[in-house]
């Protein structure tokens, strides 16, 4: 329990640091993006939008501490002002519409690629010296491919040439968003190619990490003892070798997840998927700083939550961490 609390404390500190970083970045960057933006809109911005912009970039007439407090206020109220890329929608509305797409897509893909990669890595390590070793260079190549480029190729083959799957988007235009069978099946159909891209590109990292840990674990005494005990091969592989070999994969979850999230964001752009990635792309294109900084916050908080979950799972899987 204490370990979990310590972890929780760490994530609170990290969240604070990330949110504060988001406050600091616009203020230390060269130039005055706020003025540029306001000028761009030639006075078409509402006074409240201008005020939100000033909160984001720092008003020249208030103290830094005061700015910091009102920044935190906007974080907790979710009031990030108006989006320019999607003018006049509010940033929170834009995010509310797009985040679920990304959340579902990335969660499903991460779970899938973790299960597939770790499973294959376990087998490759267990049966080292067999044809399974050739998985290593193959998956290395796959994981060195930029996600977005792989997405382009996937689109070229499956959407343009074979016409098996739709080219872009998140669901058929004939459907309306809601929990109807038509919409859900349409959304799943549209998600196949993006998911395929993300899973294939990210599976290699899990596979190689697991394979190497498996090989290392197999020469541990406790695996040898398990064999000496005359246990079935399956039992030795799962309960002695794999369960121990999996632990570093889990504790390295943070970094892997960072890669997947980053890759997925760019992948969404290729598919014009209605998620956060596409929004971030549009925001960056039109210098929509309020939207960008809100997206950064959102992604960071979600990644932190995912990491916290992985850490808690780790505590359950490795009894050694449960001691104070």
């Amino acid at each position, binding site marked *: 329990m204490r370990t979990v609390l310590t972890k929780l404390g760490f994530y609170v500190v990290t969240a604070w640091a990330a949110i504060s970083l988001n406050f600091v970045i616009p203020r230390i960057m060269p130039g005055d993006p706020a003025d540029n933006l306001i000028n761009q809109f030639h006075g078409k911005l509402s006074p409240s939008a201008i005020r939100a912009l000033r909160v984001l970039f720092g008003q020249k007439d208030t103290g830094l501490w005061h700015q910091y407090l009102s920044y935190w206020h906007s974080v907790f109220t979710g009031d990030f002002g108006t989006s320019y890329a999607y003018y006049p929608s509010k940033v929170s509305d834009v995010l509310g519409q797009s985040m679920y797409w990304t959340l579902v897509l990335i969660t499903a893909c991460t779970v899938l690629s973790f299960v597939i990669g770790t499973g294959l890595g376990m087998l490759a390590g267990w049966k080292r010296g067999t044809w399974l070793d050739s998985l290593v260079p193959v998956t*290395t190549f796959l994981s060195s491919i930029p996600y977005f480029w792989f997405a382009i190729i996937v689109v070229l083959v499956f959407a343009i040439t074979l016409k098996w799957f739709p080219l872009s988007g998140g669901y058929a235009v004939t459907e309306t968003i809601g929990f109807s069978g038509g919409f859900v099946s349409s959304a799943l159909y549209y998600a196949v190619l993006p998911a395929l891209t993300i899973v294939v590109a990210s599976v290699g990292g899990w596979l190689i990490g697991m394979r190497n840990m498996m090989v290392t674990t197999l020469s541990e005494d406790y695996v040898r003892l398990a064999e000496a005990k*005359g246990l079935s091969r399956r039992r030795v592989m799962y309960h002695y070798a794999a369960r121990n070999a999996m632990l570093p994969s889990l504790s390295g979850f943070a970094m892997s997840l960072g890669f997947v999230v*980053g890759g997925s964001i760019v992948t969404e752009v290729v598919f014009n998927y209605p998620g956060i990635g596409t929004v971030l792309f549009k*925001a*960056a294109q039109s210098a929509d700083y309020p939207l960008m900084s809100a997206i950064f916050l959102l992604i960071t908080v979600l990644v932190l939550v995912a990491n916290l979950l992985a850490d808690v799972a780790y505590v359950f899987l490795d009894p050694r961490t449960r001691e104070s």
Partner: protein
Amino acid sequence: MAVQAAAVAEADAAPEASVSPSRLWLRLLRSPLTCTGLVITVVFLVLGVIGPWIAPYDPSSVSHAVTEGPSGAHLLGTTQNGQDLFSQMLYGARASVLVGFGSAVVTTVLSVLVGVTAGYLGGLGDELLSLLANVFLVLPSLPLTIILAAYLPHSGSLGIILVISVTGWAWGARVLRAQTLSLRKRDFVEAARATGERTSRIILKDILPNQVAVIAASFLGTVTAAILTQASLAFLGLTDVTQWSWGTILYWAQVNSALLTGAWWWFVPAGLAIALLGTALSLVNFGIDEFINPRLRQAGIGTKKAQRAQVAGHRTRRPRRTARTGPRPPAAPFTPDSTDVVLDVRDLRVEYAGEGGRVRAVDDVSFTLRRGEVLGIAGESGSGKSTLAYAITRLHKPPAEVSNGEVRYTAADGTTVDVLSMGDDELRGFRWEELSIVFQSAMHALNPIMRIGAQIEDVLTAHRPHMSAQERAARIVELLGIVGIPADRADSYPHELSGGMRQRAMIAVGLALDPEIIVMDEPTTALDVVIQRQIIAKIMELKDTLGFSVVFITHDLSLLIELSDTIAVMYGGRIVEMAAAADFYHRPRHPYSRGLLASFPTLGGPRRELTGIVGSPPDLRRMPSGCAFSPRCPVAFEDCSAREPALYRIEGGGGAARAACLLYADAGGGGTEHELARGGTQ
């Protein structure tokens, strides 16, 4: 180097101990995958430097050859504006390679600074730096990078390098900090500090050189990540899109819908180039990984096929014995003239297949173990005694191979099987049921993430499928009781027990199926003397009540003499003397045994000078000719370095003894003993 030390400790007799560091680095190149990776990387580096000079066109200049496929004039075709893609690729190579390696340099410098400082200084500074690194590690780097890049619009390569370095230094710093922490505690660093060397000098001379492999791995990893990040940023249009890089090419391809117009040549080469370079760098990194982690290196040497081939030669199917259900009938107490052999090892040879040829770790070893007997096997480290223990139970792993011999086991009902020619199922049934093992370190031999009770239970589940859950639970409590562990400890994890208790738990696991034979490989070496005594007393008590036979392996000769019925002494992979324990103690025959006995004090008896043995154990790769002990032997004569002694039988005294020494080659008895005594201990 730390990693090499680990390698040497890990591979007991594997032939790699004394290879010089530079040779080890050269070994990296021997792997074809690593070599390929290195060559590709170098090619891209060269292209990055000379690319713009050999480019046939100006990459930005437009022409009338619009959206043309690859041709002689335009090797990779043209863009919508008639720009030459091959030239763009060459120019792009420079930007991508520059960002990749530039970021890696800056990032690595940051990582080393933070990691080594934190690890070396410790204290509050370490805590703060580690926290900072951990925070940066969990922040999703690409969104952060995108934000930073968006604030630095149209930034060139330098801006991108800075952004990538700021977001990417944490991983390397964390790894290096952990390494520095462990290095700092090592003797040579402690020594340098004790002699008052300056901190900066210690870090530069003692710490950093030991981290080269890790730093290199982190450097190459960063190059790949940076090239990918740069490509992503460029593809999103967040860099200066007029500056050619592979990412920018993809950006323009996407903006101009190259995909929809079918201009595959526009986006295929850039992505392939990125993937190829990334793969190449990863391959080099695997080479470094295997270099750091010797277990990975060995993964390739011995394969299942080799293991199978080794036993396939003399496999004969025998009907499977049915598992015993009731307890074994108590055996009669062991007597020295017993002929009831339970384990008969004949001409056993174990070889390590290494890159430098084959090394014999166990060489033509034969012995018998009688029912109820305690056979003590003594020897220095590297004498092959642990390898022998593993080979008897077929637990040896590649690169070790049993190349010759038989291990014949005779069950209580008189049936005899050769353990080495058993099929997989038969072997699984034999293991633990008839023969169990107690390992040297319970800390490492017990699964750290399973409760003690569960580690006993899975033996019962595997071998006694008819037992109910209650029966298993009762048996676990009974077994723990036998070794003196409270029943509630069944729910403890190994790390929650004290060292002595862990070792006793290990023995409880070994007793689970009431086996005929227990092989004990230095079961008490890691414990302090008091606990050691308790454990030994417990083992002897259990042996008397349960009536199993023991093969007890240790380097502690005084312990062996006390508890064994028979003692075998190993030297350089061979048994050099075998005799009844009491006889051995009073009259050791082999000069090596004499030396061993002379190197520790006895509690009773006359005072004498401790002499020990001059020199060090033989290198298995370069065994002396003739008798392996001859270079260290005080009574060696000319013939000793020419003729290999067999295990000669020596009659007389308290039973038959055997010694592999030419002193006993011709005489059938103790005729030369006088001579030996003169040379051996005085």
